[in-house]
């Protein structure tokens, strides 16, 4: 797994690639926490390079959703591969976070 980050004021895009499972969910969690701790309230997670994510990754997303909601922003996902989207649907996460086609659309959702 790899997370690349681009922070712009109070919003940021985290591009996650590879596999997120119980073996490395801790690293994913630390990466998102480090971004939010910089004062980011609107976090976009770009999933275009994400090959695999289990419930361990959902747990990390849930924590980040709570933290960004509490900061007055939120978390949005974009470019989600079809099989990962199915995980989000079956787990009910599509009700907790918005899913956009592009990072630009996702970021724009925080500036309205």
């Amino acid at each position, binding site marked *: 797994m790899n997370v690349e980050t681009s922070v712009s004021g109070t919003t940021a895009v985290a591009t996650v690639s590879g596999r997120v499972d119980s073996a490395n969910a801790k690293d994913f969690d630390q990466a998102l926490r480090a971004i939010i701790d910089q004062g980011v309230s609107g976090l976009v997670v770009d999933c275009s390079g994400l090959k695999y994510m289990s419930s361990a990754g959902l747990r990390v997303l*849930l924590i980040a959703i709570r933290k960004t909601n509490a900061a007055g922003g939120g978390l949005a996902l974009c470019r989600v591969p079809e099989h990962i989207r*199915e995980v989000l649907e079956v787990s009910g996460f599509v009700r907790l976070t918005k899913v956009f086609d592009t990072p630009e659309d996702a970021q724009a959702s925080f500036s309205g």
Partner: protein
Amino acid sequence: MEVRSELHLKLDKDEPRRVAEEFEEIAMEHGVPMGIVFKFQLALDELLTNVVSYAFDQSADPVITVVLHFTDAQVTAVIEDNGRPFNPLQDAPAPDLDLSAEDRTVGGLGIHLTKAFVETLDYERKDGWNRLSLVQPLSAHPEEHA
């Protein structure tokens, strides 16, 4: 074509990934559709993560095996362990998917996904062993035989 693979796991949190990746490699070679490969490896990963995380005390002498079996008609996996009795199909809490992010917990989500993604799941406790079997038919994809 028929492929059978038996894997032995150590009590280590990295082991479910090894099994998931081994499964993916064989399944791709076997021509299993990508959607099924993803869902079945997620189920294997979730169930094995439960076993390596919760089934054993420090003092236990753990034995965990997985047998993967691929035929033209179906993919099966049998997970056996000598840990404490646990039927994840019944004993895991069902998640409430209607709660807000603030009230949600992720307990039981892995099993919820597993049940949604694999056609047939069975649990049996016998002679001190937990035995979970997963069966996914491949024949429901007529385009593969066109």
